[in-house]
């Protein structure tokens, strides 16, 4: 039976793992390669690096971290953050990533999705969407933000997900900006709206705090995978303990892992 994926996400800045609450207040959490290996050993189904510096110097340290992490990873490995061109994506694939995730650059020029897919395959292109609900409006009007959540785009998340799929994206990584870092649960309504609008897998992100939240986003949110960062880093949970709890709840997960 196809299982629900638990994805460990590492926010990387200047070669170190950090995690913010609602995109600010960054705190240091360790070496990315070491943490990636630890999460994989604990049963993470996939590892994601999100580079939140995306400056020129930051990019060089990121590639180095990707290369070091990839050496010991034999599960799918996705890298995103600040990728603007197919050439930049190629450098990250070359360092050992299996998939790249793109966000602002695809919003600026959606052809980029197909350009990367043409060389590396659709399965290698993850479109990341940062979305926020619009007060007093239906969920279908949730808005997409660019530039790490700083810039409004006026686009609707559901429509953007559909367009990305038609342009050849292989998966959608959907982050609820309202929930991110709160540990109060995923935005199940938003996730379901996007997941039901597309055929490609949707990875829910933002708000993981306990196992119940994962169960909810898989059941009510119709998510194919769920991503969490901060809950794993400080020993609050490890992936295996989370999966055991999900299995008791009747969610299909890869166990033993």
């Amino acid at each position, binding site marked *: 039976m196809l*299982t629900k*994926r638990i994805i460990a996400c590492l926010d990387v800045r200047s070669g170190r793992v950090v995690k913010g609450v609602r995109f600010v207040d960054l705190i240091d959490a360790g070496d990315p390669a070491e943490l990636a290996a630890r999460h994989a050993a604990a049963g993470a*189904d996939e590892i994601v690096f999100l580079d939140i510096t995306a400056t020129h110097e930051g990019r060089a340290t990121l590639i180095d971290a990707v290369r070091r992490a990839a050496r010991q990873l034999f599960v799918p490995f996705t890298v995103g953050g600040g990728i603007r061109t197919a050439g930049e994506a190629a450098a990250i694939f070359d360092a050992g990533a*299996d998939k790249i995730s793109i966000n602002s650059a695809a919003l600026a020029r959606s052809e980029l999705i197909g350009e990367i897919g043409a060389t590396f395959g659709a399965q290698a292109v993850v479109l990341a969407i940062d979305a926020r609900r619009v007060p007093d409006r239906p969920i279908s009007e949730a808005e997409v933000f660019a530039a790490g959540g700083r810039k409004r785009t006026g686009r609707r998340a559901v429509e953007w997900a559909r367009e990305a799929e038609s342009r050849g994206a*292989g998966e959608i990584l959907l982050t609820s900006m309202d929930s991110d870092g709160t540990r109060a649960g995923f935005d199940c309504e938003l996730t379901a709206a996007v997941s039901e609008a597309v055929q490609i897998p949707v990875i829910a992100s933002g708000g993981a705090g306990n196992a119940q939240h994962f169960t909810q986003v898989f059941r009510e949110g119709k998510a*194919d995978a769920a991503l969490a960062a901060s809950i794993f880093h400080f020993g609050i949970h490890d992936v295996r303990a989370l999966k055991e709890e999900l299995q008791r709840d009747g969610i299909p997960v890869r166990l033993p892992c």
Partner: protein
Amino acid sequence: MRVAVIDYQAGNLASVVKALRHLGAEITVTERPAEVAAAERIVLPGVGHFSATRRLDETGITVAVRDAIARGTPFLGICVGMQWLLEGSAEAPNQPGLGHFMGRCERFPEGKLKVPHVGWNSIETNIVGPAMFRGLKRIEYVYFTHSYFAPITIFVREADGEWHSAVSADTEYIQPFAAALEWGNVFGVQFHPEKSGETGLRVLRNFLEWRPC
């Protein structure tokens, strides 16, 4: 162990190469028939479109692989590389496969479940105990990403004229399908062993260590 990993300009070979090197193999990434012919093991990866296999015909790799298989060189096809072992695929109906195994790939039907099939799914190996799953449990989890699949009715015709099932492991998504094929020195996996953790590494190691009995 000298392993030729065939490059046919279809996607990212880095992960396959890395996993095989991790297991101690000496890798040549090549699209030259002579290098394929000289290898002790041949791996055909694939994350692209079935039509990309046309390049194998154009470069002479198809002939080199057919000859190498006939000489007994172990061959492993991964994902589209496995599908290529069949007669063809609905993904590119005019592009023939190698035709080593009888059968054609089909697309998952549209319905309640999403297509592509992406993620970790359980596979069940056949009762005979296939060589490529040696040391593993009957049921294991492996990583898939694909929209086309080989049916569970894939056969191989032996020299004695007898037909045998080539399916060494099956799985289910929307419907049952072949997760792995194996007959003699020819192996195929629809999943990605290079991305399937310790289970996948064991499959690759079994391939590298395989000897005819």
